[in-house]
């Protein structure tokens, strides 16, 4: 216990000294987050200093082993670091699908060579990854995917199309589900890694109702992938994919629940003045009850997950509850803002966040898919 308190004090002092004040302000726009990669650009010297200070300690991935570029912290130390960052309002130094999704999958399923090749680049933000899962004909029924990878002896030959590939137009590499056995469904899928600069890869951004284009269509036309760039065995990709989806759900469920914002009602009253309508105030208060309860749930889930106590399907519950709550919060922000909130405005206008939030309960497995998983795997209901 004493050691933990020493670590807490040292961590707090280090954060105080190394996190610039500007990096303790709430994130309000796309420029406020750094995604790294070959073409990554810092929007300010403070953003760069903060990222470099954290990356030098391996604290972009505090709980990964030091051998792979991580911070080597224990679960309790990682929790303390998160708590101290939240207490100061520190921004995340690096946003990364490599950290949230691919890294955990490589740590579990990758070969030693793969871990040493890919993980340090993720930790240092040198390579930006995207995820090739959904296809036009394979959304909720993801295992129906058709993108083919043929074994050509010394390489895989990939042909097909992905959709809803987040930031594919900005990514350096892709982790991608491909069909290696057309005769099997789940059992005919493999997990490949390849460079987006490979000949035959092209992307096209999709314009959403929110006016932004965070997703792309991605096309593969005779793309050659070296044989060793497969994670897990051939036709075992579904196992890797399910594990990784759990991490994605965990991440999406935590959206909108970063540092600060412990009360929507207080936040709205400070920005817009006291509630004039008691019905709206009551709806916001009930939201805050659910939001604060869900924050406790997030903490509990994370603690249980790290201790190996979480039910394997629990991320589905987190994803379902977190995304539905986020949609509700944005509906209330729209209502509280009244006609002001109807302004189209820039990328950061509340109307645009409201529209974007509607995807939360669709991407990464719809709410209906999550409820089905809970019914089958946690409640053991028949035929689910």
């Amino acid at each position, binding site marked *: 216990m004493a050691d933990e308190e020493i670590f807490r004090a040292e961590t707090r002092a280090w954060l105080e000294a190394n996190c610039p004040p500007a990096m303790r302000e709430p994130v309000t726009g796309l420029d406020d987050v750094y995604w790294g990669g070959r073409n990554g650009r810092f929007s300010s010297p403070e953003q760069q200093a903060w990222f470099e200070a954290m990356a030098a300690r391996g604290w972009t991935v505090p709980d990964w082993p030091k051998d792979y570029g991580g911070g080597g912290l224990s679960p309790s130390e990682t929790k303390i670091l998160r708590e101290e960052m939240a207490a100061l309002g520190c921004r995340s130094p690096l946003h990364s699908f490599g950290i949230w999704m691919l890294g955990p999958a490589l740590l579990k399923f990758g070969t030693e060579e793969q871990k040493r090749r890919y993980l340090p680049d993720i930790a240092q933000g040198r390579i930006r990854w995207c995820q090739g899962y959904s296809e036009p004909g394979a959304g909720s029924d993801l295992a129906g995917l058709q993108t083919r990878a043929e074994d050509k002896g010394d390489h895989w030959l990939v042909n097909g199309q992905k959709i809803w590939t987040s930031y594919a137009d900005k990514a350096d590499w892709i982790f991608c589900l491909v069909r290696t056995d057309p005769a099997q469904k789940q059992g005919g899928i493999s997990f490949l890694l390849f460079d987006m600069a490979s000949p035959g890869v092209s992307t096209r951004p999709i314009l959403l109702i929110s006016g932004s284009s965070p997703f792309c269509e991605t096309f593969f036309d005779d793309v050659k992938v070296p044989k060793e760039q497969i994670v897990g065995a051939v036709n075992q990709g579904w196992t890797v994919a399910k594990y990784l989806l759990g991490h994605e759900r965990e991440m999406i469920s935590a959206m909108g629940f970063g540092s600060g914002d412990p009360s929507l009602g207080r936040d709205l009253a400070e920005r817009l003045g006291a509630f004039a309508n008691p019905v709206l105030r009551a709806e916001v208060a009930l939201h805050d009850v659910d939001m604060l*309860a869900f924050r406790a749930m997030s903490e*509990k889930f994370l603690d*249980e997950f790290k201790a190996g106590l979480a039910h394997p399907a629990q991320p589905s519950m987190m994803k379902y509850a977190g995304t539905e709550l986020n949609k509700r919060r944005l509906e209330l922000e729209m209502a509280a803002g009244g006609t002001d909130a109807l302004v189209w405005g820039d990328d950061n206008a509340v109307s645009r966040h409201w529209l974007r939030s509607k995807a939360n309960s669709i991407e990464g497995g719809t709410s*209906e898919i999550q409820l089905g998983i809970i019914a089958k795997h946690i409640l053991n*209901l*028949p035929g689910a």
Partner: protein
Amino acid sequence: MALFLTEEQVMLKDMAGPFLADQAPVKHLRQLRDANDAAGFSRDLWRRFGEMGLAGVLVPEAQGGGGLGHVEAGIVLEEIGRNLSPSPFLSTAVAAVTAIGGADAELRARWLPGIATGETVAAIAVDEGRRHDPANVALAAERSGNGFRLNGAKRFVVHGHVADLLIVAARTSSDVGEMRGITLFAVEKGAAGLTADPVRMVDSSIAAEMLFEDVEVDAGAVIGTVDDGWSLLTRTLDAGRVGAAAEMLGVGGAAMAMTMDYLRQRKQFGRLIGEFQALQHRAAHLYSELEIARAATLKAAQLMDADDPKAELMAAVAKAKAGKAAMLAVQEGVQMHGGIGMTDEYDIGLYMKRHRLLDELFGDTAFHAERVARLNNY
């Protein structure tokens, strides 16, 4: 501290669960109800709580208790809720012990050992109106000789008709509605001028309407400080609220388990009704709500045990969320059982009745959502 039960806490759960399932299952509640039992619970069972070390869970070891916390009390309460066990645990072992914890050494020595052994039953006399509103205390305590004279009425005093000890919130100054001017008193059973009218509630438990007519107590009966009882009253009520939330998790959890069993057995249209997606999705939503309520309740209990200033907010969140989640569990329980869920013979209705009382006790979801708004200055 991690937000899940420690090994010792899991051991307590593994002890309390079978103890209650064996000694006080739903059948025990039915027996008391059908016999129109005057106490509403069994004194023998309460003594066994004492023998098992459960009645004194929050009592300091120096006074014969376990010296444990609200997390441990919540573990016991969840099992009480699961079995619908009638007992004075919540009012006595949780709320009254918290109140007496703020009293002087004499009062602590007078009451805590008896609670720990399961001899003493205590009740909380706060409510005066239809809905919980503790600032609205009007029952007057005027100085008289070296003590006080109490006049007024309390209602919804759970176990008040048989309690050996009443924790009474009285007004010693200021106007009704103000937090200032409230004082807590420890009033003994049989005090002259004190009468109790037992009322059978919807869940077959008994709460009393209590009349105070020139009830004289000496200065030693004051718990804490005169006029300044609000914060201790809040802590007492919050202990009760987090405890009631934990009990509701047991009520809701058992209702959900019964309902899931039913969905796996009942056939209509040649299929198990649990195969229907309409029911599966509602069941999964219910699971999600109960899990979140469990996290909020455990968090509130941990914060109370750590004397954290955020405990008050989280106690309100826990009571509101557990009330809503367990309400969903019992309502969906009755609906998914169909006609059989409406019968007295089947247990699911008993769970709905118990939830209704616990939801109201110490403030319902509306009361606590309002409190969340005020604590956040909006």
